[in-house]
């Protein structure tokens, strides 16, 4: 915590320091790789099934003889998914993109400001406010969905982006994590800014945020994944098919009477694709964020 370099946000990347202590333990190196490989195989099978089914015809998916690969890869399924009028999939994909993006931006803005205020600004009743925030952690938001739905519907927000996004912005947990982070932020940097005549607001935007981008990136990744994957709240709020998110749409296809297998699997593949990209490009921040915070929001 004594460092004053501008790179304060980059606290300890997940250094792959191999642990040598357990060398020559219960398992030989070959055994180790065989065990890991078998476990990895089981973790990848569902992905393989997803892609295989998405690129097959229905006849092949439901055929008597199990085929490892589709005999004829059906790239046309992609086009069919987005042009098929009975399944409003493109719309739901767009809804999810809008909701998850705005959700992430809003949560980061609102919760980081509050976390900073709680961590840094001296105020007589700050600790009472902090306990009021902590108290909400004990009440999982999923449990309050009944009155929340009542509240949102009385505001007339059912089937709207507002209704999908706004209630989820006030995450006591994310606020708590930001507070913990800002407590560890080196004070010297801010004091220098104050000497230069910046107020709290100016210091926050010009000094604190630019030096915390790594933490913000980690929180953004986690928040985006949770926003994209959330199901219960969009299910409650999205009454009209036009306001379904991807997850609600998938759930509806699943319980539908007429099941078109290849389209459902293609839709699922497309629902996962954005997050796979997030994983590939932002994994460093994701892993770091989880390791730092320890908890999913």
């Amino acid at each position, binding site marked *: 915590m004594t460092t004053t370099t501008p790179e304060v946000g980059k606290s300890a990347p997940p250094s792959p320091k191999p642990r*040598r202590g357990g060398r020559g333990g219960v398992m030989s190196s070959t055994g180790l790789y065989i065990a890991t490989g078998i476990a990895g195989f089981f973790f990848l099978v569902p992905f393989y099934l997803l892609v295989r089914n998405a690129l097959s015809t229905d006849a092949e998916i439901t055929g008597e003889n199990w085929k490892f690969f589709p005999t004829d890869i059906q790239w046309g399924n992609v086009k069919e998914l987005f042009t098929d009028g009975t399944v409003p999939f493109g719309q739901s994909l767009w809804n999810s993109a809008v909701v998850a993006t705005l959700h992430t931006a809003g949560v980061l803005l609102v919760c980081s400001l509050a976390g900073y205020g709680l961590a840094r600004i001296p105020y007589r009743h700050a600790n009472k*406010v902090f306990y009021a925030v902590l108290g909400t952690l004990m009440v*999982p938001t999923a449990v*309050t969905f*009944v009155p929340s739905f009542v509240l949102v519907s009385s505001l007339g927000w059912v089937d709207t982006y507002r209704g999908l996004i706004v209630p989820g912005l006030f995450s006591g947990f994310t606020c708590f994590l930001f507070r913990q982070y800002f407590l560890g932020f080196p004070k010297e940097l801010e004091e220098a800014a104050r000497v230069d005549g910046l107020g709290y607001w100016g210091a926050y935007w010009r000094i604190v945020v630019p030096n915390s981008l790594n933490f913000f990136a980690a929180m953004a990744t986690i928040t985006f994944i949770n926003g*994209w994957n959330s199901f219960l709240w969009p299910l409650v709020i999205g009454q009209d098919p036009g306001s379904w998110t991807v997850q609600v749409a998938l759930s509806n296809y699943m319980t539908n009477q007429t099941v078109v297998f290849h389209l459902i699997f293609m839709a699922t593949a497309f629902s996962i694709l954005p997050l796979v990209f997030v994983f590939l490009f932002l994994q460093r921040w994701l892993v770091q964020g*989880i390791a730092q915070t320890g908890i999913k929001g």
Partner: protein
Amino acid sequence: MSTTKTRDLARPAPAKASPAKPRRGLRGSPTFNFWLFTGPFLIGLAIFVYAPILWSLWLSFFEARFTVTPDKFVGFENYTYMLTNDDFVGSLVTFTVFAAFIVPTTWALSLGLALLVNRLRFMRAFFRSVFFLPTACSYVAAALIWKMSIFSGVRFGLMNTVIGWFGVENIAWLADPNPPWYWLVIVTARLWLQSGFYMILFLAALQNIPGELYEAAAIDGAKPGWQTFRHITLPQLRATSTAVILLLLIAAYQAFDEFFNLLSKTTWGRPPLVELYYKALGESQDYGSGSAGAVILTVLICAVTLLQGKFMGFGRGDESK
């Protein structure tokens, strides 16, 4: 306690900061700034978190069917109704069974994966990604793959194909509660989805164990493998283990997505949230009983959290920072 806490909040590093510096240079008073920063969050918290909680409490004492502004006060009737209702009590039993399966298995699997990955010297990042990747999938997507491909009750399902090689008859994995094969489907789906996430926690904790401990143990004659694991690794992971178990329990309490999608339309195997969803937003729109159920559930979760917090000292960490 409370006064020192205020000072901590104001000055997390009192030893280093130069207290002589006057705060006159700041624009606006600290109080104004405090509300400027926390105000938007607190207003939202009041409207979208506290108000629903209080509304829920209030509703739970009224007969509220199809209405959220009821006028018939019924006292604890909704509570006694829910606590004697077979479906709701059954859902609590379902949760207990589910937690009894999922918490230990996820704990063991994620720890096992972390130990494996931690010892890899090549392809460590690759395997970490493989185990972590399911975290990207939603419960809905996983439920879909599980229900329509792996554990599809018909001949072309993967599991039925595999057991068919050994001459075993088709099993209707989800359609029949007797025998309760659906537990296998639900538990494996969640295991696949969440183990990678907790593996990351264990990996981080493993890398924080000082190497000297292992060297000291080696000098003392401890055999690598089970002995070092039992006497060094496991005790060093205690804090993480407890946190993981608490998180797993809370996550299990809130199970909804996969149960809803895998067991849609069935009356068995409903965890509390699914039960409440049908009670409050289903055909009966019984907000009163639904709210009473939500309150009961919240009290249970609080009790578990506090109980576990007593053992592991949850939240104590922030004072030491």
